[in-house]
């Protein structure tokens, strides 16, 4: 076929294959542990002042997001993401980390173009496609 597919086939033997099993195992352990922690928080809020299960879970999610922002501020969340991959980035805490790290990284460019303009640089796609899907489907619901 073309030069491009030839090249991709030729270099394939020299590219390291990612350690699929190890990556998946680490993602499973860390992602599961964070969810179990959130469940503990949700149980605690459900037993104190939350009036519904959904409210308790929202409180737990907010506290987890706050923890993630705090860890991002001291530079520790990146270490967790480095180790756990999707186990840390595909949770709500990972989204909070994406917003906070972009905000911190771009503050030297100013509060408008830097922090305000770049905060959603990494995490914006998930929020934007979620809003579009929910809005369009919501218009036709039920």
């Amino acid at each position: 076929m073309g030069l491009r597919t030839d090249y991709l086939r030729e270099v394939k033997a020299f590219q390291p294959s990612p350690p699929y099993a190890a990556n998946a195992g680490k993602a499973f352990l860390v992602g599961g542990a964070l969810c179990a922690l959130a469940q503990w928080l949700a149980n605690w809020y459900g037993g104190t002042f939350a009036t519904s299960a959904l409210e308790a879970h929202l409180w737990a999610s907010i506290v987890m997001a706050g923890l993630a922002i705090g860890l991002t501020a001291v530079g520790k969340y990146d270490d967790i993401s480095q180790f756990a991959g999707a186990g840390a980035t595909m949770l709500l805490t990972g989204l909070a980390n994406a917003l906070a790290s972009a905000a911190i990284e771009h503050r030297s460019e100013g509060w408008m173009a830097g922090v305000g303009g770049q905060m959603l640089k990494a995490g914006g796609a998930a929020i934007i496609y979620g809003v579009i899907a929910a809005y369009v489907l919501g218009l036709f619901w039920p």
Partner: protein
Amino acid sequence: MEYVRAFLAGGLVCVIAQLLIDRGRWTPAGVASLLVVLGVILGFGGVYDRWVASVGAGAMLPLSGLGYVFAKGVMVGPPPSGLVATGGAVFRFAGALLAFMVAGSFAAALICKPKG
């Protein structure tokens, strides 16, 4: 027991996401968007309600939970009709999470200087 279920369910979603990135060559932003949109679709389908009822935070904390929260705002109470009511309802619960994360990130940028 509910901690075990939350652990297993949350871990499973993360493993699927990790395999999509490693084997399927998806970008992380693509996987994150897929999870959120899946959460919206399954939320409107009513499947995610049962998933949350059985595994709790194992369904809420992965990004699919954010999509479910978007859908849940529309589904609670009388069905909204029209652009104004629907647009507000999308953010009924999700607004709590998004407002906190945006304001918290701004506060972090106020306090911290970039490292490295």
